[in-house]
């Protein structure tokens, strides 16, 4: 019996340490940690909850199907609306309050079609200063269907 006393003391010490470990662990490990791996599961919801700024072309087409019909027939069919018109989710949420501003075609068109030796050779390119001399592209081309009416295939 006498020998057992220090064993009991030791066991009590270990038990107290174990309880302290569990209490501290409960306090410092965030909820959901380890659910999917070595991370806080709630972080996934945090990231998913961030706001969007590009509505996606599906949202645009829901109202602007007239424009989409023109676009779909031309060379720019695969270009999504917000590639040129910019992020429009706020406009999509409040169509009357937030009005998009039309981009300047002199800048906009050149951002893709300005000639550059590293661009794929088959991509249509011009040197804008030679091609139009500062005239806005939309004086001749309709951006949604940019082929000139005199060109073949119109």
């Amino acid at each position, binding site marked *: *019996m006498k020998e*057992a006393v220090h*064993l*009991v003391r030791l*066991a009590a010490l270990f*038990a107290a340490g*174990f309880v302290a470990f*569990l209490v501290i*662990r*409960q306090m410092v490990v*965030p*909820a*959901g*940690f*380890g*659910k*999917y*791996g*070595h*991370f*806080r*599961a*709630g*972080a*996934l*919801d*945090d*990231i*998913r*909850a*961030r*706001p*969007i*700024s*590009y509505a*996606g*072309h599906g949202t645009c087409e829901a109202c602007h199907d007239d424009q989409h019909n023109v676009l779909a027939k031309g060379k*720019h069919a*695969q*270009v*999504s609306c*917000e*590639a*040129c018109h*910019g*992020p429009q989710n706020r406009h999509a949420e409040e169509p009357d309050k937030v009005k998009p501003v039309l981009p300047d075609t002199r800048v906009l068109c050149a*951002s*893709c079609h*300005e*000639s*550059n*030796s*590293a*661009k*794929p050779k088959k*991509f249509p390119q011009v040197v804008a200063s030679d091609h139009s001399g500062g005239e806005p592209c939309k004086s001749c081309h309709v951006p949604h269907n940019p082929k000139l009416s005199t060109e073949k295939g119109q």
Partner: protein
Amino acid sequence: MTTRREAIKTAARLLVLTPAAVAYFERPTSADAPAESKYDMAKHWWAMSIDIEKCIGCGNCVRGCANENAVPRGYFRTWVERYQAPAYPDEDHPEVDSPDGAFNGFPEKKKDNAKSFFVPKLCNQCAHSPCVQVCPVGATFETPDGLVLVDQTYCLGCRYCVQACPYGCRYIHPEKQTVDKCTFCYHRISKGLVTACVEVCPTGARTLADLKDPKDPIHAFLRDNPVQVLKPHMATGAKVYYKSLDESVR
């Protein structure tokens, strides 16, 4: 009288109880039940395909990404590089530039007798990511749907992962002082949209892909084209697949 045998028995019982106690504390509670959403992580495995032959270096993806994710100017979650690989015998020493990450596209820079092309870059969402392996606190992790994400509330800003990423895809956010990187627009793709860079790419050079979707065009893309990932020798399990990638690209 407590014998040594009894003391050992008690200790053994305590040992058996430990996992039970752990299980008790880790039991699912209502607090960490998933929010009501239709998005099922188990049904997706995200990837991206990039067609080098379609990239025109316009920088729309870089601007779109910055708009969507409030990326501070001068930092990039995605950027575009221009490679100009000279002819033999210097083809292994390409000239690479990316003025302002291609935020405003590329000014013309002619290089005679060189193979020139653009390479869009972003996080490769590695399946065996070196950045996740080095994080000391579990702030960066691989998700069940194949993304590498960062828990902004948990990151210490120690920069281990910035060093570990072989693709240079991470930066320390100048205000938050935590690490930041491409999330594949997780807030968009979990709602059924595509990433901002894919949405605004005018030539369709980038395509978001879900490898777990049997109808996704990625399967035909991988089957029908010569496809490469960046730094395959590092075995990172990169999931951004490049078509027509030149051997000079690092």
